[in-house]
């Protein structure tokens, strides 16, 4: 395989027709948190994927329309937030 690595967090996000992207930023006291671990869990709480935030605290998941749970683990703090993702792009800010 030549393609596997996650795209750069903070890079261009392309949403294919019918696809869902859940993205956003992790912040602490208003400042972005790079290097935070963001996890995507499904409606049953099962782990689905994890990314590390980019320099601006950005993260991107390529998912499907559904209710998801985002969990953040970082040295600055942790948080959990649910998101209802529709077709297209759903962006959230996660404060830790």
């Amino acid at each position, binding site marked *: 395989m030549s393609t596997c690595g996650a795209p750069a967090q903070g890079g261009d996000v392309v949403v294919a027709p019918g696809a869902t992207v859940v993205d956003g930023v992790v912040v602490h006291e208003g400042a972005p948190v790079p290097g935070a671990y963001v996890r*995507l869990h499904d409606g049953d709480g*099962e782990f689905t*994927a994890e990314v590390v935030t980019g320099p601006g605290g950005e993260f991107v*998941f390529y998912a499907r329309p559904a209710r998801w749970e985002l969990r953040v*683990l970082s040295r600055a703090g942790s948080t959990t937030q649910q998101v209802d993702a529709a077709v297209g792009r759903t962006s959230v800010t996660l404060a830790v």
Partner: protein
Amino acid sequence: MARNDVLVSAEWAEANLATPGLVFVEVDEDTTAYDTGHLEGAVKLDWKLDLQDPVRRDFVNKEQFEALLSAKGIANEDTVILYGGNNNWFAAYAFWYFKLYGHQDVRLIDGGRKKWELDGRPLTDAPVTRPATTYTATEQDLSLRAFRDEVVASIGQKNLVDVRSPEEFAGKILGPAHLPQEHSQRGGHVPGAINIPWSKAANDDGTFRSDEELAELYGAAGLDTDRPTIAYCRIGERSSHTWFVLSQLLGQQDVKNYDGSWVEYGSLVGVPIEVPATA
């Protein structure tokens, strides 16, 4: 096989970065991660450039692997300490790969790069060079590696452990959600496979769960320890993580990793696929 033979803690690793005879090696899914900071003295392996044949979809061959390790300054008698991102996905893949080519002493840093960063341990961007060696590999140990025909023939015969997320197992998505969805031709799983996501074997900080917790996990999921086991995921890195757990931590015999995994199986013509009914 004992846990202490194949795992080291981050604390132990930090205390032994300069110990002669140890070679720290970083392998990440994000192949740029090493360049932003790595353990002092650690060398980088790029899973795409170093561990994949540039033409065929296969591993580098014995001679290529020997040349790679020689150039990286890794000797046959060295203890190789692997670590990486994504809860050690590709570090576990490299562990399995090193065993495939017969390296004797290989270990993982428990929790990998994630645990190291969460602990706030030091990273450096200083270049690392090691004197070249003359590394000699064995032929691939195919008792560790499954191919597609064996997987098809194993349906109903062996434990087939699908370690992907339930979303992927059910065919709702075709790959991990941190990747653009560009994967196999079909979704679903190998008939009869049991879904034990790799993530259940790890704590939130990326360290492995205890032996007791792991034995309970696989037992409760229906793994028959009297049968041989084949683990698979999408391209073989998450299933390396599970192969490591089953064979190296739990000491199960006859465990293989199917590195072709779902990208291959889900694109084969004519093989059986199971897709759960939509609730």
